């Protein structure tokens, strides 16, 4: 049966919507993620889902995948109203999702991950490993992806893992295939292969949801576009009725002007951080750069290019093999966050939950962590001055929290990020590294974070910003460094930088 998965399923009627979501609502503590959103998918069509980060795309997809339950609204599949309470329900209805975050078991082989949802079995019920390997290989051959089906998934680079994710959605019969940012780390050649696959899927009558930031891709592949903003449905139109500008307008709304409030005028100061010939065992190869006080140095790279690894190495978190890191003239002992912090460099991590937040602890404890020793006298924490310092940051940053004693897990992503940023500002840094500072943050809070970053540079900090978001890269950076495969491939001044040049350098 698996060999036949790529043949037209005659049972799919082409005139009934494959999926009709009506008035979907979903709220999280402190945030309305979705508010009455509609989405209709037709068989054999590619439907692009657009919107800024935090617009509600991921939430909508997760409801479709059965990961989240909806608070209100209805879902009909093939004209039949249905409930998707668990991922299993969604899979049974033929909904396959390629998630943005890699959803693979790293200990398993690629082939096994492909068939994770349903293992092919032999007559006696045991797993047909030979079939799995053969079919995985056949599948990759058919799609044209070069991935070794026998490799341990965790050993693969992120781009290949992404291909495995995509391939997995095609391994079984599906009525609806959802792809959430499938190309974020693929090369243009691989993107072309993906598009061939998508076209083949639609020819079979499968409805495809395509989520992407990349306008060119959307114009190339999609039939219809739905735009979400701030959890609301903004527009659904055939792609032919859109221009680049109209699409951006729908996504960003009026905020396009003030999203990147650049207030700085002065030029950069002296060198605050210098990195020479930095290499690690894991990723980085001979990275050298300098960052100056009062500037935002943006780092761009596709997924797996080494941005996060670079961030972790220069703040002393990960060990390095060779190279020299100097902060404000003092050499940093590698793999020692304590000295790094005391020298004045800190990291706002990409993964807030895993590396930033102490979820169960209150706002106050979370914010004061790095600066705590400055409130201590003879080892005792002066909680009075700690609290007033925290309170002043809560006021200045407009952190929305019922009290300083609220566990931080109950705050929205934007407010959490403000608390983590304040953690470092309270400490008083010379260099701050921010890694994907707006991931999972809604649009309103986003511009506040941008304003904060801008202000930091204005106050004389060297800001190093790792990002995969082109608008924020271009909007905020004074200089832009581009990485690929662990190397620094290009550096542009603000004036030189264009999307095309940056992308070319990132793909090289």
């Amino acid at each position: 049966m698996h060999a036949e998965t790529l043949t037209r399923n005659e049972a799919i009627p082409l005139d009934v919507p494959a999926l009709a979501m009506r008035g979907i609502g979903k709220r999280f503590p402190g945030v309305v993620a979705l508010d009455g959103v509609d989405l209709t998918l037709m068989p054999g069509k590619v439907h692009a889902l657009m919107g800024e980060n935090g617009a509600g795309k991921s939430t909508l997809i997760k409801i479709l995948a059965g990961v989240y339950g909806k608070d209100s609204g209805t879902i009909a599949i093939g004209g039949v109203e249905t409930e998707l309470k668990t991922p299993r329900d969604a899979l049974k209805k033929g909904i396959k999702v390629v998630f943005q975050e890699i959803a693979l078991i790293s200990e398993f082989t690629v082939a096994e991950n492909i068939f994770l949802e349903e293992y092919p079995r032999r007559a006696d019920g045991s797993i047909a490993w030979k079939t799995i390997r053969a079919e995985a290989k056949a599948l990759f051959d058919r799609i044209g992806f070069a991935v070794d089906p026998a490799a341990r998934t965790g050993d693969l680079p992120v781009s290949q893992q992404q291909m495995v994710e995509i391939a997995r959605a095609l391994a079984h019969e599906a009525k609806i295939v959802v792809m959430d940012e499938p190309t974020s780390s693929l090369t243009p050649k691989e993107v072309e292969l993906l598009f061939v696959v998508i076209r083949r899927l639609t020819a079979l009558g499968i409805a495809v949801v395509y989520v992407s930031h990349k306008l060119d891709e959307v114009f190339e592949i999609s039939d219809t576009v739905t735009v979400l903003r701030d959890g609301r449905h903004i527009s659904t139109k055939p792609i032919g009725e859109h221009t680049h500008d109209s699409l951006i307008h729908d996504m960003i709304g009026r905020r396009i002007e003030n999203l990147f409030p650049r207030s700085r005028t002065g030029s950069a100061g002296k060198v605050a951080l210098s990195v020479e010939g930095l290499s690690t065992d894991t990723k980085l190869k001979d990275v050298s750069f300098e960052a100056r006080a009062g500037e935002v140095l943006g780092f761009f790279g596709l997924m797996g290019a080494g941005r996060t690894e670079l961030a972790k190495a220069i703040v002393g978190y990960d060990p390095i093999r060779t190279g020299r890191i100097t902060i404000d003239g003092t050499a940093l002992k590698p793999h020692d966050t304590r000295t790094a912090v005391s020298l004045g460099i800190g990291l706002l991590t990409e993964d807030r939950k895993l590396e930033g937040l102490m979820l169960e602890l209150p706002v106050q404890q979370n914010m004061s962590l790095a600066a705590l020793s400055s409130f201590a006298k003879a080892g005792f924490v002066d909680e009075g001055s700690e609290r007033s310092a925290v309170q002043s940051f809560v006021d200045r940053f407009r952190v929305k929290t019922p009290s300083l004693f609220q566990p931080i897990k109950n705050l929205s992503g934007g407010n959490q990020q403000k608390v983590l940023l304040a953690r470092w500002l309270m400490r008083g840094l010379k260099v701050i590294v921010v890694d994907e500072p707006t991931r999972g943050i809604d649009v309103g809070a986003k511009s506040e974070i941008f304003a904060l970053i801008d202000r930091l540079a204005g106050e004389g900090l060297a800001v190093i910003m790792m990002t995969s978001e082109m608008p924020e890269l271009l909007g905020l950076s004074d200089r832009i460094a581009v990485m690929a495969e662990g190397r620094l491939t290009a550096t542009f001044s603000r004036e030189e930088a264009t999307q095309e040049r940056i992308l070319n350098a990132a793909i090289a």
Partner: protein
Amino acid sequence: MTTDTLPARKRGVSLSALTDNSQIVLIGLLAVLCIGISLAAPQFYSPDNAIAILRQCALVLIVAVGMTMLLVAGEVDLSVGASLAFTGCVAMDVTNRTHSVVLGALAALAFSGAVGLFNGLVVTRLKINSLIATIATMMILQGGVYLYTREAVQNHHLLDAFTAIGAGYVGPVPIPVIIAAVIFAVGYVTLRFTLFGRYLYAVGANLRAARLSGLRAERLKLLAFVITGLLVGVAGLILASLMNAGQPTAGRGFELTVIAAVILGGTSLAGGRGTLFGTLLGVLVLKIVDNGIIILRWNQDLQMVVPGLVIILATWLDIVRRRNDAR
């Protein structure tokens, strides 16, 4: 609610500054136990019994102070029972040889501190899960104590000061209770008000975040292990004094009692959550249950069953409570 981890300090110390929801459940449980037992057996409230309970609590509480710090930092030490027995033997032996209580006490602390250091190094340097590492240490100590002494180390020095550590009184209050109270107070202040205490919560709540913020997570954990070790030394000294001998067979199952009390007090096995006040309540509940079973002349086998049930129940109530908080 405010928080279940670090209670908010209000101006002036009110009861609500010391407690939180999970502890209200425990306080209620404690009240029910006390009332129930004393209705059935009035001797429960006799001064003798109160002192007996407090003295029993003292030993557990002293070690539980360290264990709370360890659990808050996300680690655990199962070797405390075996270490307790060994330390008692060392204390008695050295006091016998030197006729000095001070040297005996120092030797006990040095030994148990070294055990804590060993545990800490194995966990932080070799990166072995502390559950496994301290099971191994437990085996080593259980074997080691018999290599050290085949039989109970008798009191040959007959120093009154040594006997007083465990069996003496200041006024009506037994000295071990005073020692425990002091250690509890110091522990409470340390965990609650000092940089070290606050850092332990951070390390346990999110190790990576703590390291990224410049905390020396490994060293903090190591310190918590050493503190636990030293407190075991104090308890071992008291036990040796109470028993008037260093008993290599003592301390069996002691580690489970201590951990049970700490967990019952609302400290999470996952780290980052817990208070010493909760631990105090946990110790009291467990020891009053233990005492009540004897006072009520129930079958002593229940002393195994009841704590098992109480801990599962308390943990479940905690989960229910937190689930409700999240809404």
